[in-house]
């Protein structure tokens, strides 16, 4: 009997999404999660098997025209191993063995890269490169050999990069501190279509640098279930720790703010706090004010040094 081809591929694993199934699902009905559009407060019920999928997202197209599913198979193998670890260890608050730790890091590494946001960012970058190359070829009057090569490369670039980058990202994640943040009774974590978030508080007031794994204060967060979220960092934040309701809601605000198109909750209720741009924290507000004052001062200083000598053009 021919094996079913996995053409419908999840970019957020189904086994992972099943954690957010509404516990109040009526008997006999397929279990569902609550999915919300980015920025919207009204959600709809969907079965985890039907969301966050794309056809042939990880399918390699060979030169012969055949389709190769080895990336999808590798990812589902990894998801299976992660699901076991989550069920047998993380959910029971037990320490992970070295092998399990590696699997968790590999799962996080895959989650960082496998989403449509990552693919779209890569495509945008490649498209710009191709456009520049084509423009140069045109202006120099040479044939479009190079740009064609790049177009060919772009077809499988996202798929290939997942496989190529997975070992090195896993290796970078391995020495980081691992913390499982356990929500106290009363609040739950939410997730999204791009649940793995890289955040560096040092870079939040600028747009030039993006967060990277080797930065001192970077943190990789990933909600693993409504009760537990993973946080990897270079700080001494490690172990299983109880997270207060406010801290959980603050993390949810980050997840909702970072989502690409959708976020997912285990019930239909949303919190106003999730949609706030800034956290409601006195010290953070002070930081924002300080930053604004610094920026104004910097602009004024620049104007005093250079700007005041330049006459404005009359319009």
């Amino acid at each position, binding site marked *: 009997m021919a094996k079913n081809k996995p053409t419908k591929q999840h970019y957020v694993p189904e086994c992972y999404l099943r954690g957010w199934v509404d516990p109040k699902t009526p008997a006999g009905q397929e279990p569902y999660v609550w999915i919300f559009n980015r920025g919207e407060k009204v959600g709809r019920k969907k079965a985890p098997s039907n969301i966050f999928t794309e056809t042939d997202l990880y399918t390699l197209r060979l030169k012969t025209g055949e389709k190769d599913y080895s990336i999808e198979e590798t990812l589902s193998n990894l998801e299976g191993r992660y699901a076991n670890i989550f069920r047998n260890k993380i959910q029971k608050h037990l320490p992970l063995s*070295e092998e399990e730790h590696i699997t968790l890091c590999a799962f996080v590494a895959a989650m960082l890269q496998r989403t449509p946001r990552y693919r779209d960012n890569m495509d945008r970058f490649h498209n710009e490169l191709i456009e520049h190359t084509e423009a140069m070829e045109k202006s120099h009057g040479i044939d479009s050999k190079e740009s064609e090569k790049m177009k060919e490369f772009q077809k499988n670039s996202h798929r290939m990069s997942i496989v190529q980058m997975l070992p090195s990202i896993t290796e970078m994640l391995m020495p980081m501190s691992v913390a499982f943040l356990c929500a106290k009774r009363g609040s739950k974590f939410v997730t999204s279509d791009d649940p793995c978030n890289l955040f560096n508080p040092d870079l939040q007031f600028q747009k030039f640098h993006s967060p990277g794994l080797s930065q001192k204060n970077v943190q990789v967060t990933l909600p693993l279930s409504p009760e537990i979220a993973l946080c990897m960092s270079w700080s001494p934040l490690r172990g299983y720790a109880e997270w*207060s309701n406010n801290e959980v809601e603050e993390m949810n605000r980050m997840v909702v703010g970072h989502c690409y198109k959708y976020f997912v909750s285990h019930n239909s209720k949303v919190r106003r706090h999730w949609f706030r741009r800034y956290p409601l924290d006195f010290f953070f507000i002070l930081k924002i004010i300080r930053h604004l004052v610094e920026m104004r001062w910097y602009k004024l200083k620049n104007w005093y040094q250079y700007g005041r000598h330049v006459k404005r053009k009359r319009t």
Partner: protein
Amino acid sequence: MSNENELKKAMDLAIQGKRQEAAAILVVLESKIKEPNLRLRLIDASLSSLSPVKNNAKLIDLAEEAIKITTQAGISNYQAHFMARKADLLRFQITIRWHRVTSLTLTPGWIGFATEADKMEYEVLTSETKKMEDESDNLLEQALTLANKSEDKKTKAYILMDRGQVSSSKYLQRKTDCLRGTLYGKLWVKSQSCRYPIFENFFALINVTVRELPVYVKSFKKDLLEAGKLLEQIDDSAASSAYFNLANELKTAYRFREAQKHLKKSRTIALKYGDIAMIVKIDEMKKIIAARNKDVPDYIDGEERSNDTM
């Protein structure tokens, strides 16, 4: 120049307060000198000249070697002295391990280890720390018994100085334990003014460990004062060092007024014996006390000061 002369030169440099120059010579001589008497002098000079932070492991080995030599030769007062030195040096190893142990469980609301590697590291470090603490306490006890038997006031004074420093180190360690995870801990880290004893007693009374803190302060004050008095009785210039060390430990415990009082005493003695190097150190310490500990080196991060203790 013969090894003996080189060693004498290094010891002279150490007495003058030029510890780095002395240490450079002693490191070279360490592999050359094998004769037990000279070796003992070399180890003694190394223990006072080499950095107790940078060369801690090496100094522990040297102290251990000196204990063996003195035990074989039956020189009980020297044996007691080296035992006390080793006990004091072990505190640094204990502190480093304790820092790592606490950082493994530092997360607020911590309930368990995330990885087996962390759990194993915690268990190994805890058992090593316990072993070292026991060894340090036993060494001090044995050293004091030996010193009391020999009735050598100078040796007893030096042992008491080491015991005082060990108590001070224990005081700091216990204080760190009290601070973890509490609001007071956060304030203590952020603000200098929260580190004064009045705040410590007020905010941390609920914690049982905090009640132990004054006991440690009393203990190191008693030991260092007794050491100073013993050295004064035998008319030894090291009495100045005893009071200086007491002032240093009191400064660390944010008891500045008392520290100034003992520093004054240390200066009077140093002036009496014309100990210029000591007077320079006392003047530096005066500045640190006047600045109310706002410039404390981060030893864990590798920072060091040459004139912290004598």
